[in-house]
């Protein structure tokens, strides 16, 4: 067991740190949370800077440890988050890289890396959330196209996306997991209507997407027809894999800020609160260690992240909510003021136990796939 880094890794860290120190002060002002076109431009501008400096590929072809260092350093330095590029960089892109043809990779990957194209994820439907394989959006063949009709929901960043990783039913008669296909749908196609939905935090972060006879070329299908569920599992393993590394670093920073604020406003003298903060310190230190453990494991086995991501996601999503609950105790009545730091974060943390598979679904996965307990009805 070793927690030290190689000379090469240390050098990567030092170079990155130096570069961040130089470029971060040159960034434009962050757009307001509700300005999606502004946020798209900002996030893509940042991705372009990473690309030009040679860091654009880091999520894909760097070693897991190098990626860990990248996420740690960018978060520590206060660099922008992947934001609108989340789906393209962290799961559609890796899925295309793993499952796409050479032609598909050539068409779609470079623009994601350059920050030219943004992707969204069209998996969930009004009647297919946790039970994702129950999806009903249909696609039938007409010449070289699929014609797609149906609707998707909770599609994050749909308003500003160029492409959508879309799950459709291509065989209505097959068992539900067998008749699904994975398509890359251009969001500019005729027949797509995006209706923004407001989150409880007040921003139009996701949307409902209506599809009325949208034509998608057959060549945009990734994997075989009706083999989309297998491709979906690849996508989900990326989504639940190491996507939260930077956030753990961020939570540790917030915790330190909370302690300082508590001392400033006198709440530090409350031993109950102090001990809660101490316990959260233990929690996030342990989550960081678990991240290092999982990254080392991925490095040893090389390949798609395993179901271990569910263990991490379960614990992390609750810890994050607890962190902002304690933040509210530190703030007291100010915790009801949306202008105060941490209040919006508290609201958005509520999605963590729902999005990307609810905690209940993650517990089923851990119990059935890791512990081998029987599937229930």
């Amino acid at each position: 067991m070793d927690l030290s880094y190689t000379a090469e890794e240390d050098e990567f860290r030092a170079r990155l740190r130096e570069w961040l120190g130089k470029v971060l002060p040159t960034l434009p002002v962050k757009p307001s949370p509700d300005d999606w076109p502004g946020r798209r431009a900002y996030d893509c501008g940042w991705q372009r800077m990473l690309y030009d400096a040679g860091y654009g590929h880091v999520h894909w072809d760097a070693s897991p440890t190098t990626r860990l260092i990248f996420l740690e350093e960018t978060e520590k330095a206060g660099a922008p988050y992947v934001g609108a590029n989340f789906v393209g960089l962290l799961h559609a892109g890796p899925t295309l890289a793993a499952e796409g043809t050479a032609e598909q990779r050539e068409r779609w990957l470079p623009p994601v890396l350059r920050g030219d194209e943004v992707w969204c994820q069209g998996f969930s439907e009004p009647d297919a959330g946790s039970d994702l394989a129950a999806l009903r959006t249909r696609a039938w063949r007409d010449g070289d196209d699929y014609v797609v009709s149906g609707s998707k929901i909770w599609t994050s960043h749909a308003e500003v996306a160029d492409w959508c990783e879309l799950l459709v039913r291509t065989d209505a008669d097959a068992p539900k997991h067998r008749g699904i296909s994975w398509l890359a749908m251009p969001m500019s196609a005729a027949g797509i209507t995006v209706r923004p939905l407001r989150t409880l935090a007040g921003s139009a972060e996701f949307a409902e997407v209506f599809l009325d006879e949208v034509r998608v070329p057959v060549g945009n299908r990734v994997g075989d027809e009706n083999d989309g569920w297998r491709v979906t599992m690849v996508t989900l393993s990326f989504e639940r894999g190491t996507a939260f590394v930077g956030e753990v670093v961020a939570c540790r920073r917030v915790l330190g800020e909370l302690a300082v604020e508590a001392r400033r406003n006198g709440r530090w003298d409350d031993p109950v609160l102090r001990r809660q903060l101490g316990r959260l310190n233990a929690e996030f230190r342990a989550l960081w260690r678990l991240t290092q453990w999982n990254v080392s494991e991925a490095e040893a086995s090389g390949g798609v992240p395993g179901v271990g991501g569910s263990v991490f996601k379960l614990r992390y999503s609750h810890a994050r909510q607890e962190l902002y609950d304690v933040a509210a105790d530190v703030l007291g009545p100010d915790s009801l003021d949306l202008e105060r730091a941490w209040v919006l974060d508290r609201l958005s943390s509520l999605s963590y136990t729902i999005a990307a598979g609810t905690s209940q679904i993650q517990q089923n996965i851990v119990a059935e796939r890791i512990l081998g307990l029987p599937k229930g009805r």
Partner: protein
Amino acid sequence: MRFQLTDDQRALRDAVRGVVGRSSSAGVWGLVAQFPAPLKGAPRLDRGFWRGLGELGVFSLRLAEVDGGAGLGLPEAVLVFEELGWALVPGPLVATHLAAGVVPGAATGETVVAAADGSLVEWLDEADVVLPGAEGAVALRSVDPLTPLHRVPAPARTDPVAVLLTAAEQLGTAARVCGLAVQHARTREQFGQPIGAFQAVKHLCAQSLVRVEVARAAVYAAAVTGDVVDIAAARLLADEAAVRGALDCLQVHGGMGFTWESEVHLHLKRAWVRARRGGGNTESEELLAADLLARAA
């Protein structure tokens, strides 16, 4: 960074596992059989078994080779103590380990060493030596039938290494009770199916595993860094994993879990005893809180 067990560490763990635990007669059931009616009288420590632990290197592990040890470090000690926790091995294990090289005979298991930790001493009457002493010790009727306890009036300071090794034992217990719960959930049938098919049971087991994995990462990392704040974090996570895990394991076992014959209560009671060592949770939480301010300063 290669935060995974090395081949040597794996081999060491497997060797200890083979001797103290899983398959051997010195495992939990052999020990329980020694104490058929433990509500009365104190247990005796099996000196032969203790010397066996000495031969295995449990106490001398971290001594230099010239002093008769194996010259290994905290990570190896943690792996060994995890196995001892898993197998519910009784006795003042941590105290004797820490006395190796200091008290003659401790390293080989010839001498049994007990120590005051916080305001408690475990195994006082069976010990040959007590560190740093146990003036005014009063016997308690111990909740754990396999750990006799005395209370001392002046609380003793705790060594961070003792806290870490205790966390390792707790981790072993946490893994053990998770395994027991899963095993029972797979085999016990109600309503025509294994109870493990019911989500309420499934989720208890899943959370138990999540706590084990988080605690494991924390305990192993603390062993690598040896840092007192890492150690404090490890003990909080490991205490939670052991105590909560044992309680949930008991729940999964239903009525059977409430009986003396089922081993579940023994794991729970031991986890409770260990959670009182090293000043208890409060001390670790305060240390971790102070660390937040120290880092921000």
